[in-house]
């Protein structure tokens, strides 16, 4: 597992959205929303990396920046060893065949005026795959079958389907170009519980069948825990904790992850009564003006002296210290080996900033 280079790697990634005034011809920047603010991350071939965080933490922006749907303001995104910033517009477009996105809202992510067959076939048309009317039709039917839809419904429009079926259409579209890397951006958030389970199981099966690599972006820690091999926790534009899923979720090392895990309601009254829920005070600060030092310090129950002054970096925690802590500091140079362990960006594990 160790030797192989990661499929996707982000280094020092920033995505800032300048908010411009609406004056014609003088669109001066009024403030800058730092949606992603210095992220180092890699996704290994064949794994599922879960990315959790609350609304506004930048997780969706990060996911879309990894497939270059949003251009980074600084830092690099490498796909299969190639820096995507060096690619021409047309080279980037053909690279899009190898990566795909499944969007959250199955009602908004399908063009209401195109049949689902047209929607699923769009990547084929764009990349000139399965040329010829009959062959393309057959391929669309095949894709629909793979995701559990009736191929005879290819001529129907999105509004004629239920939410779960629409999400299957979105998944079929994502699979059409036979991608290697799929960003699942809150794929189950707007679905009913029983349909969520269907879609999660489908995603797991597709990964197994086609050797897909997933970035599973979600606010739902239980869902992430169900499908992800590794988990990254995001807060206000930064990764605050990352590691193997059982390790991060069952033994959180960052106070934010701890609060997040403790806030997830368990479907068991016995466990709920026994639970000691950590209720955080206050709201998430504005990503346009993050706090100095550690971004979580304004809500952190364990805040202490260095927090306002030093911006913590990801560092190995717990039993993983043996891996060599110093390698992980300044993660932009860290290699895949050092990042395998459980890391958290918190001064409780040693003040490093």
């Amino acid at each position, binding site marked *: 597992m160790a030797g192989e280079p990661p499929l996707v790697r982000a280094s020092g990634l920033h995505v800032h959205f300048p908010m411009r005034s609406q004056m014609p011809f003088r669109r001066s920047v009024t403030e800058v929303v730092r949606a992603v603010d210095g992220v180092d991350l890699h996704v290994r071939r064949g794994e599922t990396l879960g990315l959790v965080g609350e609304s506004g933490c930048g997780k969706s922006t990060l996911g879309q920046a990894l497939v270059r749907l949003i251009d980074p303001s600084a830092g690099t995104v490498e796909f299969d060893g190639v820096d995507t910033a060096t690619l021409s517009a047309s080279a980037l477009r053909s690279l899009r065949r190898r990566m795909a996105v499944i969007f959250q809202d199955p009602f908004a992510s399908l063009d209401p005026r195109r049949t689902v067959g047209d929607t699923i076939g769009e990547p084929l048309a*764009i990349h000139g795959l399965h040329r010829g009317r009959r062959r393309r039709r057959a391929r669309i039917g095949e894709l629909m079958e793979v995701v559990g839809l009736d191929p005879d419904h290819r001529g129907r429009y999105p509004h004629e389907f239920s939410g779960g079926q629409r999400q299957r259409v979105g998944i079929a579209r994502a699979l059409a170009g036979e991608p290697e890397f799929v960003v699942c951006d809150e794929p189950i958030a707007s679905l009913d519980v029983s349909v969520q389970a269907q879609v999660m199981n489908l995603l797991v099966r597709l990964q197994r069948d086609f050797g897909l690599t997933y970035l599973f972006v979600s606010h739902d820690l239980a869902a992430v825990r169900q499908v992800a091999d590794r988990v990254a926790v995001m807060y206000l534009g930064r990764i605050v904790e990352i590691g193997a899923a059982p390790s991060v979720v069952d033994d959180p090392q960052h106070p934010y992850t701890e609060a997040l895990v403790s806030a997830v309601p368990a479907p068991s009254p016995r466990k709920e009564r026994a639970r000691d829920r950590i209720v955080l005070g206050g709201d998430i600060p504005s990503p346009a003006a993050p706090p100095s030092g550690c971004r979580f310090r304004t809500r952190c129950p364990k805040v202490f002296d260095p927090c306002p002054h030093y911006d913590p970096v990801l560092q190995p925690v717990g039993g993983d210290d043996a891996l060599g802590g110093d390698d992980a500091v300044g993660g932009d140079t860290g290699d895949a080996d050092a990042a395998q362990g459980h890391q958290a960006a918190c001064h409780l594990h040693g003040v490093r900033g």
Partner: protein
Amino acid sequence: MRDEALDALPVEGKHRSRWVETLLLLGRNPMALVSGAVLFALVVVAVFGAAVAPYGYNEQFAGGQLEAPSGQHWFGTDEFGRDVFSRVLFGAEVSLRVGLVAVGISLVAGVLMGLLAGYFGRWLDDVLMRFSDMLFAFPAMLMAIAILAILGPGENNAMIAIGIVYTPIFARVTRASVLSVREEIYIRASRASGAGNTRVLARHVLPNVSAPIIVQTTVSLAFAILSEAALSFVGLGTQPPDPSWGRMLSEGRGFIEQAWWMALFPGLAIFVTVLAFNVLGDALRDVLDPRQRSALSGKGGGA
């Protein structure tokens, strides 16, 4: 025609082309059918006006000036003793042509401007929309007159002038819809699949902004026909003695107390035409929307 449409629909129509289905659905709406029939009749009159009209458009009946409607002159006669009914029939050609061509010009130019300005934004938006604001700021008639002062009077130039004057409305309507559609997730999804700007604009943006554009088109047709009337009235559009509804309406105003029929019938012709365009436009808008389409054809959603 209508019964046929009703019978044909419930049959499984999977392989029927979308255009045929659109027409069949339109046929189920009685209002659309009536408007379609009216417009069809108008086109026939416009093309074969000379054959249908009982008299020549410039044929004068000596001593028969300002006669009230009668069996001989259905719509009465004007101040020169010309048959108003015949002139209304001949006028259909001019009014329809001016309306359609002028609106065609503003439709193409305005939609293109709106699409580009709304989709690409930034400086292109600023330049295009400020230009359109400038056009918009002039009173429409003044603008048209100014353009005709440069181009010279005449029917063709009037069409161009009216086309230019109504371009900013289309640009605005289109841009406003593009601004909201541009942010839709399905646009992002299409880009994620590798679609370029041309494809996104043609396959996703344009179809999804068509509804307000169709409505604007039918409204503008009415205004274009009226603008032609106004331009002709000040002598810059259709030149006398050629008939156009607008001209006739304007001329009839002077005789409204002696001969109400001179203004009423061309006015009625404009009214009926505009109404027909509006009704057909609304029906078309509904039929072209797949969501409305299912409701119309009785297929339930959320299968």
